Structures are given as C-alpha cells and as structure tokens.
C-alpha cells in the first residue's frame, strides 16, 4: 500500500492549482452575482489540457484516469466551485459516450470536447422524475430511420450552452421492467424542436448554466442512440459510478477552501484581546474540519483508484459521495460560523462556499439515495 501520488500526478495537481489560482479569483464574485460566465476561461482550460483528461488518447484526450480527473476537479473547486463547474461540466456525459458509444460517435464528439470546440450535457431529471429516474417520461419513438423526441427535462446542466446533449428517453414505455424502458439518445441542440430556458436564482454554483429543456417533435437519426436500446438505466448507473467520484473531489476542494479561509481568518481576527485561533472552541472546529476532509478524501481516492483498476464498487462510491458531500456542507457551515458577520457577506468567499456546498448533497444522487445504495450493498 502506497499513499503517495506519483510524480506525474503531483505535477498535475500543481498545474491545476496554478491555473485556477491564476485565473479564477478575480472573476468569481462577478459570475456569482450576475449568474454569468466567460467562455474564454473554458477555452483556456481546454488549451492547457485540463478538460476531459480521462478521454482516450485516440480521441485526443490525455488517456489518464478518472482519478487524475478528480485531482484536477479538487484543485479547481478549492479556488472557486462555480467557475470550476462551468469549465469541468462541459464534458458531462462524455463518460457515457466513452463507455457505450459507437466508434463513430466517439470520433465525432469526444475530440471536440477536449479541444474546447463543443460543450455537452446530459439531460436526465424531469419535473416529476428526480431521484427516481426510471420515472422519466420523455419519449423517443422510431419513425423510419429517425427518433422523434417529445418531453421536458429539468435542471439540465449546460442546457442553454451545450452543442449536444445525451437525453434519457423512454424508448420502450410498455416494457414490464421499468428499468428496461429507457435509452440515451444524442441530441444536437441546433435541431428544430429544441428549446432551452436558463434557470435563474440558483443558490450556488451560479457561474454554471442550468436550464429547463423541452423537445417538441425533435428528430435525430436512429444512429444517435448510444449503446443498446433499453439499457439506459443500466448505463445511467455506470455513468453515476464515474461522476459521483467527481462530486467527491468537488466536495474535498470546497472543504479545503473553507479550511484555508478559516485558518487565515481565525489567526488574524482578534477578540477578547486574542486571535480567534487561540480559543479551544475554534481549534476544535479546525481540527474536526481537517480530519473529516482527510477521511473523505481517502474514501474517494480508494473508490476512484478502484474504478481506474477496472473494479467499480457501487456501494463504496455511494459511501464516498454521501460522506464527502455532507462533510463539505458541514465545513462550509463552520467556516461561516468562524467568520461571524463577515462570513454572511458575499465579499467573503466562505459565504459563496456555503451556498455552493448544498448542491453536493443533491445532484447526481441525493444523499438519501446514496445511503440507500450503501444499505443495499450491506443488506442485499
């Protein structure tokens, strides 16, 4: 057992940190306040190779693992979650194409994501189907050599900025097994019948685009089906077993930012004639935050490392995701507490981190769903 990162992994961490620290802080508050983003930052990150490192070399990726992707995500989130999400989410769904897509789909779509020439997203959640994705009712019906798609998706990341989406559709609504009714279909967003509306007023990660999306008799070629028809739900679980690792990395990055700001503030801020950091009440908070962060990181390191070894442990990944997200929410809460009134103001980063943190317990598997998965892995 060796807990050290390789030299190359250390170099990746350092490079990601330098880029994020050099580019994000001066724009973070503006994007958060205005719910906006500058695509130039995405372009720069792609030029430096930070986007889609897990994509195979034959499709212009770095051919690295999900673990290395996590290392980059953690460094980015340790500077600013919103900007990081706007940049990194541009490949959200490429995991599905890489796992289940045809050669032609991989060759057509993956290189454009790595180059920063395209942005993608994956539309799963619907107004009435969130934690129960098998309840999704967006339909795709074969009409000759085209799928005709109708329905509505909710909270779709990159809905208004994506060049293409993977859409989780019912293709066999009559199948008695509700987990065999769905398929992923690739939809180019410039097709007639596509409509996306940017959702304003998110609590956090406000630099990242989230939209409600509607499909109205939208036609795509039959070849846009990803993988085998009817296996969408199974594919979705495989997808989440990768992307949930990214959430863990996001959580650890966010908690690191909370810890760093809390240490700096409590050493500087004096009350009763002494720095806040000299009070045991503060020391315990800092100690707990650092310990929980380390535990969360070790948990996801193991889960991510196993995936790159070809061993996908559904229960362990769910454990890591639930624990890391909860850890980050608690870290942000304590960070604001240690900052007192200042922490309530958006001039202080911890205020933004507090708002950014909550989504970690919601997206890509609410914590209750993660615990259900863990329990199932133990109880059967």
């Amino acid at each position: 057992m060796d807990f050290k990162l390789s030299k190359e992994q250390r170099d990746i961490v350092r490079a990601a940190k330098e880029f994020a620290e050099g580019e994000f802080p001066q724009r973070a508050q503006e994007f958060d306040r205005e719910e906006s983003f500058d695509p130039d930052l995405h372009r720069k990150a792609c030029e430096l190779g930070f986007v889609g490192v897990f994509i195979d070399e034959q499709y212009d990726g770095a051919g690295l693992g999900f673990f290395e992707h996590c290392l980059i995500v953690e460094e980015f989130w340790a500077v600013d979650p919103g900007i990081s999400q706007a940049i990194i989410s541009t490949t959200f769904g490429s995991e599905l194409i890489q796992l289940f897509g045809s050669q032609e789909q991989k060759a057509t779509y993956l290189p454009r994501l790595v180059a920063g020439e395209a942005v993608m997203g994956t539309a799963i959640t619907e107004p009435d189907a969130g934690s129960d994705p098998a309840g999704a009712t967006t339909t795709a019906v074969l009409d000759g050599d085209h799928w005709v798609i109708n329905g509505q998706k909710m909270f779709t990341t990159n809905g208004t900025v994506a060049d293409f989406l993977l859409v989780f559709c019912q293709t066999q609504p009559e199948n008695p097994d509700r987990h065999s009714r769905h398929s992923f279909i690739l939809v180019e967003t410039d097709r007639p019948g596509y409509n996306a509306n940017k959702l304003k007023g998110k609590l956090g990660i406000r630099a990242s685009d989230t939209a409600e999306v509607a499909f109205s008799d939208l036609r795509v070629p039959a070849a846009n089906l990803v993988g085998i028809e009817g296996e969408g739900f199974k594919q979705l679980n495989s997808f989440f077993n990768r992307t949930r690792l990214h959430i863990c990395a996001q959580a650890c990055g966010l908690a690191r930012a909370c810890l760093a700001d809390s240490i700096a503030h409590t050493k500087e801020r004096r009350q009763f004639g002494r720095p806040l950091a000299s009070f045991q009440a503060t020391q315990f908070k800092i100690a707990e935050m650092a310990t929980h962060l380390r535990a969360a990181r070790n948990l996801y390191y193991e889960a991510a490392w196993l995936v790159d070894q070809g061993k996908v442990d559904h229960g362990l990944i769910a454990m890591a995701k639930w624990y890391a997200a909860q850890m980050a929410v608690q870290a942000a809460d304590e960070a604001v507490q240690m900052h007192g009134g200042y922490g309530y103001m958006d001039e202080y980063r911890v205020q933004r981190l507090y708002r950014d943190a909550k989504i970690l317990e919601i997206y890509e598997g609410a914590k209750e769903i993660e615990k259900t998965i863990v329990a199932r892995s133990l109880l059967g």
Partner: protein
Amino acid sequence: MDILVLVKNVPEAAQADLEITDDGSAVDTDDLVFAINEWDNYAVEEAVRLKEAHGGTVTLLTLGDCEAEDVLRRGLAMGGNRAVHICDDDLEAGEPAAVVEAMAKVLAGESFDLILAGVQSSDMGHGQSAVLLAQRLGLPHATMAVGLAIDGDQVEVVRELEANTSERVRLPLPAVITVQSGINQPRYVSIMGIRKVRKIAVELHELEDLDLAATEAGASLVSRRKLFMPQAGQGAEILTGSLEEVCDQAAAIIREKGGLA
C-alpha cells in the same frame, strides 16, 4: 541556440509563519510547501521563448534534495528539453561558491550559448550563483534583465536600475544573464507538457560522486553564526477608544509633531 537555465526549489515563505529550528541553524521547512523560485520561473519562460524563436534546446539544472526534481519536471513541462539534477541534502542552502563549484564540475565539457537564472532565490537571497558561475566559466554576465534580445552572436539586455531607470548593454555570446521578475508572463504548465515529461529521463548526479575538494565545497568561506527572527520594533502606540476618540488622538499627535498647522 542552446540555453542552460539554473533553477531552484524553494519553500513558499511569503504567506507562511516561519519557525527557526531549535538549534538556531535553519528555518524549519517541514510544514512548508516547496515550489520553483519565482525569478527562476521567469528565466525558464524566457529560455523557452528564445528556443521557440531561434530553435535549439533548453537544459535545466538544479542542485538540491530529491524533491528538487519537481522544479526540473516543471521546467520540462514548460518546454525544456533536458534536465540535470545534482542531488544533495547538505548543500541545499549552501554557500554559492560551493554550489557553483558543483555545477561547474557537472557542466565540464558542455557548451551553451546562453545561461539564464533568476536574479536571486527567495529563500537565501544571495543573488550570487549565476554571477559566480560566469566568473568560474570565464563568461561575460549581465544582471537584473527586464528585456533580452538575441542579435547574431550577441545579446542585448535591458537592465532594471533604481528610480525607474534602465540600462541597455550588449554582451558577446556565450553569456550569463540573471532575469528579473516581470520580464515576461510565464505560461501555465499544461497536461500535454506534463505527459511529454514522461519520455525524458532526468540526469542525476550525486554530489558525493563529483569528487569536490574540501577547499571547493566542504570548507565554506562564510559561516552562519545565527538565524533569528527580528525583534518586534519599539515605539508603536496603539490608540484605543471610539472611532471619534481615536481620530481626535491621532490628530492631536500629528499636530504635536508639527504635521498640522
């Protein structure tokens, strides 16, 4: 154009709470994060730009412990071609004359058109290694470059002087030049650059194998007597009270000292 860049792995001390070791001989670096010396980063960037403009190679050289290899790989990822590591723990904060002697031994038989280094290192701040190396190799040198242009077999250097003045000097190549921060905007390290480093083996020299005579490396001409934190200054007066009271007191003091009519 073949360029050599001297680089150093230094602790990031600007934001850190430094502590002196119990025996008073060194800064305790156990909890410090190490990174490339800021000035050296500009030197690497300048070298890579010159290579991109004129062709040739960039070789990186460092002397330090095994962790110091990090700064070599970083330079390779930025565009360097070759890296040489003189590995030793003791000389890490050593006297520049000894460092340069070790470098000269390793460089024997090699030739470069240009040798670049940062003006100084952010840890010990001697600002001597590159200049001493020029002396040792019998090469002309210029310090504190904020501009640098190759012109045939010469290099023209803009040196930064005090009070916003500059000096333009010409040197025949080969030459040694120390680079001031701000000469360029160093690039970020890319994932592509990092992956390229996989294919490059760092050339490793153990200091003890260099057979340096005691007079060259062992016996330093300068010995460190004590490392210490300066005492907090006396004479600061902390004003207390409400904002209005503090302002009144401050105004009274300024008036008393003749600052207000």
